[in-house]
């Protein structure tokens, strides 16, 4: 188990450097020191810059283009940002550079040609360098390499400390020298902040890119082992029996897709009518007092974590209700999971439909009442048809939510990939397969692990399509009545 933690290769090391100051990784004190130095210099820079601006103004602040604090921020930025950039670049390059230097020192006979053995060798060196023994007596050459690695590492860390501190001091002094009465310090600082704001808003994009890339990259690897058609149309899902030689016929995802579909349909049968009727009642009939009670109830229902619903499904729905009804319920069943998931989604459907129904103009209702229609007739014949696009959008979002739900199904519907339409049988879903296969300590080379990314890709694409269409429909609908 412990050795598994160190089996990750050189990248483990370079990033652990970035994070060691939070944990107890031990050796590289220098990075912490550099961060402290930068922090101190930034604060010092602020006060120096501000003081200098005040001195230059000589009591008449109106001669300055910007107020003194902006000069302070200006100097502080110059002291901090370049040094931090250096630190980031250094930390991300250091590991590979040192490793290539170390490998160059090893006798050529020791260096394996294929990629996997090379990774293993690098891991060995890193473990030795970190002082973690794997129980075997190390090859003296490898032990030397580990020693060299440690030396180079120490040298590099010291260089980083010296260079980083120098850069921070240089930035500080140069910026301070620039301070004059007509320095547009505020504009400079604001430009820097603007860049920061833009970077922050790009994080969301980067997340999406990261999701797409990580799914695609691993999924493509999987599809080189298992043909896409086998995966999408095969009827047997049995990754336990799949060893690297024999992967054909073990990765047919149809039972998983049908299981997901079955549970989603059950959930929708519960959630859509009840959610919709709740929304209709709340927006068209309920007195304000009823509304003020019913709305929080639904909100609480929406705020309960899914793992709690899962426990409830497994405990009450299956153990108690199942036996009370004398049903031949297997210990895990699609029905229990689906119904409880439906309960979970009721508030989702109802709050979205509530918005949609409230957006229908009152004039349509008044017209209908004027013709003598009752309230329910108005709702059924006028309001709901007018709100239909929005409701369809809401239902699609709910479906996407149901497809992506993991915990309820994992706890109540099980892992057995049965190709069945019987709601009392155990079925499995895409999300559960993902969660059950991966526990964070996998190697990315077995088809079983990689299959998860195939499933994840399908899940992502399907929910994305549903979301895009639903959001567009809802938006179009809003525009229509705005």
């Amino acid at each position, binding site marked *: 188990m412990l050795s598994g933690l160190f089996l990750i290769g050189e990248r483990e090391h370079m990033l652990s450097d970035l994070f060691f100051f939070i944990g107890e990784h031990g050796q590289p004190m220098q990075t912490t020191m550099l961060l402290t130095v930068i922090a101190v210099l930034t604060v010092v820079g602020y006060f120096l810059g501000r003081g200098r601006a005040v001195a230059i103004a000589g009591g008449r602040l109106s001669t300055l283009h910007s107020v003194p604090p902006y000069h302070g921020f200006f100097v502080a930025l110059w002291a901090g940002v370049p040094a931090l950039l250096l630190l980031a670049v250094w930390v991300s390059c250091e590991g590979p550079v040192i490793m290539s230097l170390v490998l160059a020192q090893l006798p050529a006979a020791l260096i394996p040609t294929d990629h996997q053995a090379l990774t293993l060798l690098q891991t060995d060196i890193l473990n030795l360098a970190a002082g973690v023994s794997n129980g075997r007596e190390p090859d003296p050459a490898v032990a030397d390499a580990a020693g060299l690695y440690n030396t180079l590492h120490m040298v590099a860390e010291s260089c980083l400390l010296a260079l980083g501190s120098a850069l921070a001091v240089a930035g500080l002094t140069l910026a301070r020298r620039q301070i004059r009465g007509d320095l547009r310090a505020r504009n400079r600082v604001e430009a820097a902040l603007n860049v920061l704001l833009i970077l922050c808003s790009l994080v969301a994009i980067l997340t999406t890119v990261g999701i797409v890339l990580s799914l695609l990259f691993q999924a493509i690897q999987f599809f080189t082992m298992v043909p896409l058609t086998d995966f999408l149309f095969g009827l047997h899902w049995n990754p336990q029996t799949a060893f690297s030689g024999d992967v054909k016929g073990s990765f047919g995802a149809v039972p998983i897709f049908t299981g997901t579909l079955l549970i989603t349909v059950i959930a929708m049968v519960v959630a859509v009518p009840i959610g919709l009727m709740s929304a209709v009642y709340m927006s068209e009939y309920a007195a304000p007092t009823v509304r003020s009670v019913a709305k929080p109830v639904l909100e609480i229902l929406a705020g309960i974590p899914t793992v709690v619903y899962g*426990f409830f499904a497994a405990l009450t729905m299956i153990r108690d209700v199942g036996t009370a009804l004398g049903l031949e319920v297997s210990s895990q069943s699609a029905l229990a999971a689906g119904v409880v998931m439906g309960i979970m989604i009721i508030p989702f459907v109802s709050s979205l439909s509530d918005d949609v129904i409230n957006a229908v103009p009152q004039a349509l209702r008044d017209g209908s009442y004027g013709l003598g229609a009752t309230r329910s007739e108005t709702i059924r014949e006028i309001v709901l048809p007018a709100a239909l696009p929005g409701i369809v959008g809401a239902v699609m979002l709910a479906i996407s939510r149901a497809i992506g739900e993991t915990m309820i199904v994992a706890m109540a519907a099980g892992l057995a990939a049965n190709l069945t339409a019987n709601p009392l049988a155990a079925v499995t879903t895409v999300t559960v397969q993902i969660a059950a296969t991966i526990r964070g300590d996998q190697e990315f080379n077995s088809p079983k692990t990689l299959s998860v990314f195939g499933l994840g890709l399908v899940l992502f694409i399907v929910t994305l399509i549903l979301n895009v269409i639903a959001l567009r429909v809802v938006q179009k609908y809003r525009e229509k009545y705005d």
Partner: protein
Amino acid sequence: MTDLAQETVLRRSVYKSEAFEAQLRRRYRAERRFQLAGIASIAFAAVMLVVLLTTIVLNGYTAFWQSRFDVEVFFDPEAITPSGSREPAVLSAGDYPALVREALLAELPEATGRDGRRAVMEMVSSAAAYRLRDMVLAHPELIGTRLKVSLLASDNTDQFVKGHIPRAVSEDKRKVSDRQVEWIDRLTARGVLASHFSLDVLTQSNSRQPEQAGMWGAVIGSVMTMLVTLGMAVPIGVAAAVYLEEFAPKNRWTDIIEVNINNLAAVPSIVFGLLGLSMFLDFFGMPRSSALVGGVVLALMTLPTIIIASRAALKAVPPSIREAALGIGASPLQVVIHHVLPLAAPGVLTGTILGLARALGETAPLLLIGMVAFIVDVPGSLSDPSTVLPVQIFMWADSPERGWIERTSAAIMLLLAFLIVMNAVAVYLRKRFERRW
């Protein structure tokens, strides 16, 4: 004129006809049915909420009581340290289960033979022997003395005392044998075995034995994960919202960012787990099972929620505030930082708390990055292996012993308490600071 009068009469006669009245009754019945359906829907949701909460509380409150044997233990020097040495290494290797056994056999003299002794030992938790060991290690002068000690009962005994293991079931289907039932009854009557109020379920760390398991480690793990999420999602989310709402030009790029954020909000949470697995664990090599990675993954997951809520809050600040500030010479950034953001802060805060509440209850992505490992130690730093409350609930719920049901329910009660507090704070903030312009 007469035509019109005649028509009115005619029409009135239509309104008074049998068929019309029947139709009207039908329509009114339909109206009532429709309304009843609405009431029934809401009632169903409310009943389900009540059933869910009562199930959890009824199953969970007993976890705060634990059965203990109050017996006199003889700290037998022969069993603890046959050599007479007082070295801690020797003391910790002593035969403490023997002390437990002798203490209980003194109360139950008829339990003889190997079977009898085993049946007795099944009734106490393995924690009892550890308790005695820790006592001896802390106070070696106890050796050779007699002391009344409260020994933790085993899960099955505890569950039987609480009535979760029914008495009526035949012996072969019951985890507690008839003989043990008789002993339990006798010891209970004599006051040796009793349930005591105990907060161990909160303050202990995890264990494989239900009667010893507590959730302190998971609570700390949750707190650390939430701190990472808070520290990352809030600054980035608010900055992104400020840029998109106040500065971004309306062009194709900002449209893409907007659509992207809306879609990201609806991506299944488990996909974020896959991202964390292949990006942060495999590619960046960050420490697995750690609160750090968990926090980062949850931060990316809550980011869209926070951005959307913050944008709504910023949008609610009237333009007149901005124009006034611009009019007296503030730069656009000063307008936002000095005026718009402070006015939008309550809304931003409310959105943030609600986003965090969702992150606090999230389980699926954390399973994928290995926070599901069995961890006894309370995590000491962000890179230590740790787990969080919802994952702990998932793991406990998965275990078969009866005692886990009450532990799981108790953990759920704690989680829900956290969530209720967070939501209450959010509601309070909204009520207290909400401004209508």
